[in-house]
């Protein structure tokens, strides 16, 4: 009985449950690139226009505090490495007006698209069964999914990931 308690205590030791998947071989990202979603001005945007970029697709919402908190670092990374082929795309599971207001307030420098059921289904298909936020998918220049993460992406972790992807051919 004592042994069981000790084991259970170790298991319950407050470990975060981010599910991140480091794929050895990139998975096919064509479903991601095939997404077509409206931006805050109502114009349809196809993700395929960013084929060839290191694409960071981030599912978020204004009502998701952890989502908002990681965005300033995304903005900084976009400004710094956009010229090297880095492209962030935000998919907001949210109302247009709220997204537009927030995008203006934080001076978002990458596209904010409005995601509906289709986007939610895609995030589920890529491992986000509960459609929780934030959820991030990273594609390499070849269009392969090299990383997915449920939960915030810490600055150091993101920088390390992007460094590798941006310097590879």
């Amino acid at each position, binding site marked *: 009985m*004592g042994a069981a308690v000790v084991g259970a205590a*170790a298991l319950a030791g407050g*470990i975060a*449950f981010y599910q991140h998947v480091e794929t050895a071989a990139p998975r096919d990202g064509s479903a991601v690139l095939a997404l077509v979603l409206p931006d805050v001005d109502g114009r349809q945007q196809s993700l395929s226009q960013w084929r060839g970029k290191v694409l960071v697709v981030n599912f978020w919402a204004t009502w*998701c*505090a952890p989502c908002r908190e990681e965005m300033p670092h995304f903005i900084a990374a976009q400004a710094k490495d956009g010229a090297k082929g880095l492209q962030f795309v935000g998919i907001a599971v949210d109302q247009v007006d709220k997204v537009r207001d927030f995008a203006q307030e934080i001076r978002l420098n990458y596209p904010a698209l409005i995601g509906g059921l289709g986007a939610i289904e895609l995030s589920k298909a890529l491992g986000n069964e509960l459609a929780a*936020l*934030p959820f991030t998918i990273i594609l390499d220049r070849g269009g392969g999914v090299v990383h997915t993460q449920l939960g915030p992406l810490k600055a150091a972790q993101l920088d390390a990931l992007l460094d590798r992807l941006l310097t590879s051919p």
Partner: protein
Amino acid sequence: MTRQKSLRSPWLRATNGISAGSRRRLGLVERSLAALAALAFGTAIAAGLPGLAPKLLPPEQAFRFSARVLDPATIEARFDVADGYYLYRDKLRFTAEPVQVLPVDLPRGQRKHDEFFGDVETYRGAVTVRLPLASAASGGTLVLHADSQGCADAGVCYPPNPQKLTLVVPANGAKPGPFVEAAPRGLFR
């Protein structure tokens, strides 16, 4: 000297506690080793062996919704929020049919300063809310809908999560009815 021929292994003899001659209790060393093994096993799981890391709870388990009839014109709704999760007070909504829910006095929650939304209030643990009904629902059934939105401390938020349950309102409402759960626990959950 007698010997139990069917139990040649000293280990078997020890666990069966049989023949006095070769019996040993599980000593301190054995119990410590068992505890260490359990600790190592638990830690390995917690450290996130692929596929074994603790998972995010589905919203109906993170935010368990239940309700009971207090009297024919009053429902008591309850949320049991799991440890490490919280609900937003201003996102809680209750509706019902066929009888309407009147404006509700939500209990105060814990104040949390949000950079974008200002001061928000959150609920943790058990929260009960009295729902007055527009008219008595005696002798019928009532479907109660709860809309809630919540997050996990670990930094993840759920989309709006509608749940519902059905209550039977007794004809004479002598005493409060039993709690009905929206998502009853299975035997093995």
